């Protein structure tokens, strides 16, 4: 097992990793920028090394400083958390070169999944469902009709030069195709001076459902069930939950199998997440794979009873996994609290936490690096706390989350808590009746 792990990150995920290391008896090194001098991870790590100024590119994204910090502290592994260098091929390679274990994916795996079209090809070959469509540009209307027939309506025509909905048409049947094609090409020509079109299956009522997988150094890969992350705003997840209210045991097994296939295709080692879009018919399509721990990993921990960061560390140290899949034995939900003003276009709200009172009690978990008197710096991500609850039904989970959020007192800055409380009371949300478009029309 590792003797000392350097955490190449900040905020709650740095704290998260340090906590597990402490529980495993592994020494920790926090690295920090000038802006994070008084941060909680710096305070509780065994050692802390200042690596640069506030700007991420000069500190948390600075390979050289982070590796030098590992060298001067004799750390034998680096945990990158999420974001920053966690999916950086070059950094993973540099760690290898310097004999420091990168607790994450190898350069090859990151490479295979980092490029979207690469990843899609790999998945297709592995038999993982991807969104079907034309291979590049359509030659003519006839080819479009042929492909549409093959992949089944509805389909979406998209201008290759497109954007902002221009040169885009949803087509529901053969009879609509010609008209849509003509209008879209004219529009694209006018808007972009380019009427090249391609075609894809149109995903109706999409949900974001991702599968957590784990693979060890010996080729064993298993899945740890799904997380429904459909409640998002501009691709930023807001609330995540497991089980997905939309997924049953049968679909879970199919998606889990597909995610394992995805992992096997690249000989995946470590924890990873395969993101799928699920349409109204419960057909699912590969979106992308994240080769790192996710922000929302705690809800999986709550329902399978295992510490995922501990699993990451064990896998990196060469300990084999059991290899069997895990299914949720409870219901869990996570709300992300951001230092943003939800009633003012989500304007960031850095500043001093004047008053802090965290909720507690049965089934309530808080992952947060803030403390009373802490100053949230303006340079980084605005997430300041994750509230995770667990109970025996979705209804109980929602009630518990409401209770927990309403006990949470954070004064001195604006937070997204009031928005979260409103979502929790929304009848569609309560009914589990939502798609990734939920926030587009949600009134608050």
């Amino acid at each position, binding site marked *: 097992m590792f003797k000392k792990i350097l955490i190449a990150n900040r905020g709650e995920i740095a704290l998260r990793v340090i906590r597990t290391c402490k529980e495993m008896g592994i020494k920790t090194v926090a690295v920090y920028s*000038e802006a994070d001098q008084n941060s909680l991870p710096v305070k509780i790590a065994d050692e*802390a090394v200042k690596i640069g100024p506030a700007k991420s590119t000069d500190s948390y994204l600075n390979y050289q400083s982070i590796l*030098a910090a590992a060298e*001067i502290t004799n750390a034998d592994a680096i945990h990158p958390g999420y974001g920053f260098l966690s999916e950086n091929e070059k950094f993973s390679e540099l760690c290898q070169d310097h004999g420091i274990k990168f607790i994450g994916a190898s350069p090859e795996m990151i490479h295979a999944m980092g490029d979207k079209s690469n990843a899609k090809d790999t998945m297709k070959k592995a038999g993982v469902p991807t969104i079907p469509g034309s291979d590049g540009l359509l030659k003519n209307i006839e080819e479009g009709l042929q492909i549409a027939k093959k992949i089944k309506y509805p389909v979406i025509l998209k201008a290759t030069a497109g954007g902002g909905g221009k040169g885009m048409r949803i087509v529901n049947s053969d009879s609509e195709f010609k008209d849509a094609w003509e209008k879209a090409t004219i529009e694209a020509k006018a808007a972009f001076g380019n009427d090249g079109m391609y075609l894809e299956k149109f995903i109706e009522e999409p949900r974001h459902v991702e599968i957590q997988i784990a693979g060890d150094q010996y080729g064993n890969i298993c899945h740890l069930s799904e997380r429904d992350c459909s409640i998002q705003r501009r691709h930023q997840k807001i609330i995540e939950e497991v089980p997905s209210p939309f997924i049953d045991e049968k679909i879970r097994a199919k998606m889990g199998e597909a995610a394992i296939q995805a992992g096997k295709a690249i000989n995946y080692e470590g924890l990873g997440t395969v993101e799928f879009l699920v349409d109204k018919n419960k057909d699912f399509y590969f979106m992308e794979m994240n080769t790192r721990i996710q922000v929302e990993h705690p809800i999986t921990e709550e329902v399978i009873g295992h510490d995922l960061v501990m699993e990451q560390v064990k896998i990196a140290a060469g300990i084999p996994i059991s290899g069997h899949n895990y299914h949720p034995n409870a219901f869990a939900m996570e709300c992300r609290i951001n230092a943003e003003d939800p009633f003012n276009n989500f304007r960031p709200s850095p500043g001093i936490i004047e008053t802090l009172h965290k909720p507690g009690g049965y089934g309530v978990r808080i992952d947060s690096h803030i403390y009373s008197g802490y100053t949230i710096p303006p340079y980084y991500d605005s997430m300041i706390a994750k509230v995770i609850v667990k109970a025996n039904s979705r209804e109980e989970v929602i009630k518990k989350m409401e209770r927990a959020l309403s006990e949470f007192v954070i004064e001195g800055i604006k937070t997204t808590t009031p928005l979260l409380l409103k979502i929790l009371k929304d009848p569609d949300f309560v009914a589990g009746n939502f798609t990734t478009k939920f926030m587009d029309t949600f009134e608050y």
Partner: protein
Amino acid sequence: MDIKDIQALIKFVSRVGVDEVELEKDNFKISIKKNQASPVTFSENAAPIAQPIYQAVPASQAPSEPSEVASAKSTKEDNINLVEFKSPMVGTFYRSPGPDKDTFVNVGDQINVGSILCIVEAMKLFNEIESDVAGKIVKVLIDDASPVEYGQPLFLIDPS
């Protein structure tokens, strides 16, 4: 008085309602002040509550601090015109280009902008560190072959 005592003392001072403690003992001198210059009301409240929570002394720094050096802060107050030359990167500090070589600079040496002061090794790269001021080396703050953090003071320079 070892580092643990000093840490305990600093923590203690920050917790109780005092603003400044100066302590001199044998060849040892310490000066602890609490932040008086917080113009915002809230930071006055927050500071005494937040700061004593933890000791934020990086452990990696402790063993590398040479005993002859007074704390940077008090030195700075005593010598208001001196400039701290800080490490531009994390790594290992070397005073000479090699084990048998002469040191780049010594106390009393006159230096110019661009003079090489030391090497900071990071990832097996030996980065020669140039001065951005002209003046005279007053003190070398770090022992040879010690680890240094970003922004850690390496030399005191008298620019006059």
